[in-house]
Protein backbone atom coordinates (compact mmCIF):
# COMPACT_ATOMS: atom_id res chain seq x y z
CA UNK A 1 0.00 0.00 0.00
CA UNK A 2 1.26 3.48 -0.88
CA UNK A 3 2.19 5.62 2.11
CA UNK A 4 -0.51 8.05 3.08
CA UNK A 5 -0.59 10.90 5.55
CA UNK A 6 -3.65 12.48 7.08
CA UNK A 7 -3.74 16.06 8.32
CA UNK A 8 -6.59 17.74 10.12
CA UNK A 9 -7.28 21.45 10.62
CA UNK A 10 -9.97 23.59 12.08
CA UNK A 11 -11.98 25.67 9.57
CA UNK A 12 -9.85 28.80 10.01
CA UNK A 13 -8.37 30.58 6.97
CA UNK A 14 -5.32 31.52 9.06
CA UNK A 15 -4.43 27.83 9.33
CA UNK A 16 -4.53 27.01 5.63
CA UNK A 17 -0.95 28.16 5.04
CA UNK A 18 0.32 25.66 7.64
CA UNK A 19 -1.40 22.71 6.02
CA UNK A 20 -0.30 23.87 2.56
CA UNK A 21 3.34 23.91 3.71
CA UNK A 22 2.89 20.49 5.30
CA UNK A 23 1.44 18.97 2.11
CA UNK A 24 4.24 20.52 0.10
CA UNK A 25 6.78 19.05 2.50
CA UNK A 26 5.25 15.59 2.21
CA UNK A 27 5.48 15.73 -1.60
CA UNK A 28 9.07 16.99 -1.69
CA UNK A 29 11.30 14.52 -3.47
CA UNK A 30 8.46 13.07 -5.51
CA UNK A 31 7.32 16.23 -7.29
CA UNK A 32 9.31 18.83 -9.19
CA UNK A 33 8.99 22.41 -7.90
CA UNK A 34 6.38 23.41 -10.49
CA UNK A 35 4.30 20.31 -9.75
CA UNK A 36 4.53 21.02 -6.03
CA UNK A 37 3.38 24.61 -6.72
CA UNK A 38 0.36 23.25 -8.61
CA UNK A 39 -0.51 20.87 -5.75
CA UNK A 40 -0.05 23.55 -3.09
CA UNK A 41 -2.30 26.01 -4.94
CA UNK A 42 -4.98 23.35 -5.50
CA UNK A 43 -4.95 22.30 -1.85
CA UNK A 44 -5.26 25.91 -0.71
CA UNK A 45 -8.09 26.67 -3.15
CA UNK A 46 -9.97 23.51 -2.14
CA UNK A 47 -9.69 24.20 1.61
CA UNK A 48 -10.56 27.89 1.17
CA UNK A 49 -13.70 26.83 -0.70
CA UNK A 50 -14.69 24.46 2.08
CA UNK A 51 -14.17 27.10 4.78
CA UNK A 52 -15.71 30.05 2.89
CA UNK A 53 -18.58 28.37 1.04
CA UNK A 54 -19.10 25.05 2.85
CA UNK A 55 -18.81 26.24 6.44
CA UNK A 56 -19.58 29.92 5.61
CA UNK A 57 -16.49 31.04 7.50
CA UNK A 58 -17.63 29.47 10.74
CA UNK A 59 -14.63 28.27 12.82
CA UNK A 60 -14.48 25.07 14.82
CA UNK A 61 -15.40 22.73 11.94
CA UNK A 62 -13.10 20.05 10.59
CA UNK A 63 -11.22 19.85 7.31
CA UNK A 64 -9.16 16.74 6.67
CA UNK A 65 -6.48 16.42 4.03
CA UNK A 66 -5.23 12.96 3.06
CA UNK A 67 -2.10 12.77 0.93
CA UNK A 68 -1.35 9.47 -0.81
CA UNK A 69 2.13 9.07 -2.27
CA UNK A 70 2.40 6.68 -5.22
CA UNK A 71 5.52 6.25 -7.37
CA UNK A 72 3.79 7.86 -10.35
CA UNK A 73 1.24 10.19 -8.74
CA UNK A 74 0.15 12.12 -5.67
CA UNK A 75 -3.48 11.67 -4.63
CA UNK A 76 -4.97 14.37 -2.39
CA UNK A 77 -8.35 14.04 -0.75
CA UNK A 78 -10.06 16.92 1.03
CA UNK A 79 -12.79 15.68 3.35
CA UNK A 80 -15.31 17.90 5.13
CA UNK A 81 -18.72 17.72 6.75
CA UNK A 82 -20.26 20.92 5.41
CA UNK A 83 -23.45 20.97 3.31
CA UNK A 84 -22.45 19.55 -0.11
CA UNK A 85 -21.39 21.70 -3.02
CA UNK A 86 -23.96 22.29 -5.76
CA UNK A 87 -23.85 19.51 -8.36
CA UNK A 88 -21.93 20.19 -11.56
CA UNK A 89 -19.82 23.09 -10.28
CA UNK A 90 -16.54 21.20 -10.70
CA UNK A 91 -17.43 20.03 -14.20
CA UNK A 92 -18.46 23.56 -15.22
CA UNK A 93 -15.28 25.17 -13.90
CA UNK A 94 -12.77 25.56 -16.70
CA UNK A 95 -10.02 27.67 -18.13
CA UNK A 96 -12.70 29.45 -20.22
CA UNK A 97 -13.03 31.74 -17.18
CA UNK A 98 -9.70 33.24 -18.22
CA UNK A 99 -10.66 33.84 -21.87
CA UNK A 100 -11.67 37.38 -20.87
CA UNK A 101 -11.11 40.52 -22.90
CA UNK A 102 -7.92 41.85 -21.26
CA UNK A 103 -8.63 45.37 -22.57
CA UNK A 104 -11.97 45.53 -20.75
CA UNK A 105 -11.51 45.57 -16.96
CA UNK A 106 -15.20 44.77 -16.38
CA UNK A 107 -14.59 41.43 -18.09
CA UNK A 108 -11.69 40.41 -15.81
CA UNK A 109 -12.72 38.07 -12.95
CA UNK A 110 -12.10 39.07 -9.31
CA UNK A 111 -13.45 35.88 -7.76
CA UNK A 112 -14.85 32.45 -8.47
CA UNK A 113 -11.47 31.32 -9.81
CA UNK A 114 -10.70 28.57 -7.30
CA UNK A 115 -12.34 25.55 -8.96
CA UNK A 116 -11.04 26.50 -12.41
CA UNK A 117 -7.52 26.77 -11.00
CA UNK A 118 -7.83 23.35 -9.36
CA UNK A 119 -8.90 21.78 -12.65
CA UNK A 120 -6.10 23.52 -14.54
CA UNK A 121 -3.44 22.48 -12.03
CA UNK A 122 -4.43 18.87 -11.33
CA UNK A 123 -4.70 15.91 -13.72
CA UNK A 124 -7.90 14.47 -12.23
CA UNK A 125 -10.54 16.09 -10.03
CA UNK A 126 -13.59 14.27 -8.66
CA UNK A 127 -16.13 15.33 -6.08
CA UNK A 128 -18.44 13.06 -4.15
CA UNK A 129 -20.92 13.79 -1.39
CA UNK A 130 -22.96 11.44 0.74
CA UNK A 131 -23.77 10.42 4.32
CA UNK A 132 -22.91 13.92 5.53
CA UNK A 133 -19.40 13.77 4.15
CA UNK A 134 -17.90 15.50 1.12
CA UNK A 135 -14.75 14.33 -0.57
CA UNK A 136 -12.74 16.15 -3.25
CA UNK A 137 -10.20 13.82 -4.82
CA UNK A 138 -7.38 15.39 -6.81
CA UNK A 139 -4.59 13.57 -8.63
CA UNK A 140 -1.28 14.99 -9.78
CA UNK A 141 0.74 12.71 -11.99
CA UNK A 142 4.50 12.74 -11.58
CA UNK A 143 6.06 13.79 -14.89
CA UNK A 144 9.37 12.05 -14.31
CA UNK A 145 8.82 9.18 -11.85
CA UNK A 146 11.87 8.20 -9.84
CA UNK A 147 13.63 5.00 -10.87
Amino acid sequence: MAPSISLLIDSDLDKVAHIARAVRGVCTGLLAAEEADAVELSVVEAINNVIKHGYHGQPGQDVQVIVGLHPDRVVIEIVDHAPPMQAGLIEQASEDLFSFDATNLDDVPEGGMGLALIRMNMDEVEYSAGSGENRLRMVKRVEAPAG
Partner: protein
Amino acid sequence: MLTSELRNNVLVVHVTEKRVDASKAPLFKDEMTRCIDDGHHQLVLDLSGVDFVDSSGLGAIVSCLKRLGPRGSLAVAGAKGAVSRLFTLTRMDKVFALHDTVDAAVEQLSA
Protein backbone atom coordinates in the same frame (compact mmCIF):
# COMPACT_ATOMS: atom_id res chain seq x y z
CA MET B 1 1.28 43.94 5.45
CA LEU B 2 2.36 46.75 3.10
CA THR B 3 5.04 49.44 3.22
CA SER B 4 5.33 52.15 0.61
CA GLU B 5 7.68 54.82 -0.70
CA LEU B 6 7.37 57.51 -3.32
CA ARG B 7 9.81 57.38 -6.25
CA ASN B 8 9.52 59.87 -9.14
CA ASN B 9 5.86 60.43 -8.20
CA VAL B 10 5.22 56.69 -8.40
CA LEU B 11 4.08 54.98 -5.20
CA VAL B 12 6.03 51.75 -4.74
CA VAL B 13 4.10 49.36 -2.50
CA HIS B 14 6.10 46.51 -0.99
CA VAL B 15 4.25 43.45 0.27
CA THR B 16 5.88 42.35 3.53
CA GLU B 17 3.99 39.04 3.87
CA LYS B 18 5.33 35.92 2.13
CA ARG B 19 1.81 34.75 1.31
CA VAL B 20 -1.11 36.72 -0.08
CA ASP B 21 -3.93 34.24 0.47
CA ALA B 22 -7.58 34.21 1.52
CA SER B 23 -6.65 35.04 5.12
CA LYS B 24 -4.63 38.10 4.07
CA ALA B 25 -6.53 39.29 0.98
CA PRO B 26 -9.05 41.52 2.84
CA LEU B 27 -6.27 43.41 4.69
CA PHE B 28 -4.24 43.69 1.48
CA LYS B 29 -7.22 45.17 -0.32
CA ASP B 30 -7.95 47.64 2.52
CA GLU B 31 -4.35 48.88 2.64
CA MET B 32 -4.07 49.17 -1.15
CA THR B 33 -7.42 50.95 -1.36
CA ARG B 34 -6.20 53.48 1.20
CA CYS B 35 -3.15 54.23 -0.99
CA ILE B 36 -5.37 54.74 -4.04
CA ASP B 37 -7.93 56.84 -2.17
CA ASP B 38 -5.09 58.98 -0.74
CA GLY B 39 -4.54 60.13 -4.32
CA HIS B 40 -1.78 57.82 -5.52
CA HIS B 41 -2.68 56.81 -9.05
CA GLN B 42 0.65 55.59 -10.38
CA LEU B 43 1.53 52.50 -8.39
CA VAL B 44 4.00 49.65 -8.51
CA LEU B 45 3.15 46.56 -6.50
CA ASP B 46 6.40 44.89 -5.42
CA LEU B 47 5.83 41.14 -5.08
CA SER B 48 9.52 40.21 -4.91
CA GLY B 49 9.18 39.05 -1.29
CA VAL B 50 6.03 37.00 -1.96
CA ASP B 51 6.25 33.28 -2.66
CA PHE B 52 2.57 32.32 -2.74
CA VAL B 53 -0.60 33.99 -4.05
CA ASP B 54 -3.96 32.20 -4.23
CA SER B 55 -7.07 33.18 -6.19
CA SER B 56 -8.29 35.38 -3.31
CA GLY B 57 -5.01 37.29 -3.32
CA LEU B 58 -5.09 37.58 -7.10
CA GLY B 59 -8.72 38.73 -6.97
CA ALA B 60 -7.78 41.42 -4.44
CA ILE B 61 -5.04 42.71 -6.77
CA VAL B 62 -7.53 42.79 -9.67
CA SER B 63 -10.04 44.60 -7.49
CA CYS B 64 -7.44 47.32 -6.76
CA LEU B 65 -6.85 47.76 -10.48
CA LYS B 66 -10.60 48.14 -11.01
CA ARG B 67 -10.82 50.70 -8.21
CA LEU B 68 -8.04 52.68 -9.85
CA GLY B 69 -9.73 52.44 -13.24
CA PRO B 70 -8.72 54.65 -16.15
CA ARG B 71 -7.30 57.41 -13.91
CA GLY B 72 -4.06 55.56 -13.23
CA SER B 73 -1.78 52.55 -13.58
CA LEU B 74 -0.90 49.61 -11.38
CA ALA B 75 2.20 47.72 -12.46
CA VAL B 76 3.50 44.54 -10.84
CA ALA B 77 7.20 44.02 -10.14
CA GLY B 78 9.30 41.10 -8.98
CA ALA B 79 6.75 38.29 -9.38
CA LYS B 80 8.66 35.01 -9.52
CA GLY B 81 8.12 31.25 -9.44
CA ALA B 82 4.60 30.19 -8.53
CA VAL B 83 3.42 33.82 -8.33
CA SER B 84 4.60 34.62 -11.84
CA ARG B 85 3.08 31.38 -13.16
CA LEU B 86 -0.29 32.22 -11.56
CA PHE B 87 -0.38 35.51 -13.49
CA THR B 88 0.42 33.68 -16.74
CA LEU B 89 -1.98 30.79 -16.15
CA THR B 90 -4.90 33.15 -15.47
CA ARG B 91 -3.87 35.52 -18.32
CA MET B 92 -3.51 38.32 -15.77
CA ASP B 93 -0.13 38.97 -17.41
CA LYS B 94 -2.24 40.56 -20.19
CA VAL B 95 -4.04 42.78 -17.67
CA PHE B 96 -1.06 43.95 -15.58
CA ALA B 97 2.28 45.23 -16.83
CA LEU B 98 4.75 42.80 -15.23
CA HIS B 99 8.32 43.93 -14.62
CA ASP B 100 11.29 41.98 -13.31
CA THR B 101 12.34 44.77 -10.98
CA VAL B 102 10.81 47.73 -9.18
CA ASP B 103 13.32 50.01 -10.91
CA ALA B 104 12.11 48.93 -14.36
CA ALA B 105 8.46 49.41 -13.34
CA VAL B 106 9.10 52.88 -11.90
CA GLU B 107 11.01 53.90 -15.00
CA GLN B 108 8.13 52.78 -17.23
CA LEU B 109 5.46 54.54 -15.16
CA SER B 110 7.37 57.79 -14.71
CA ALA B 111 8.41 58.04 -18.38
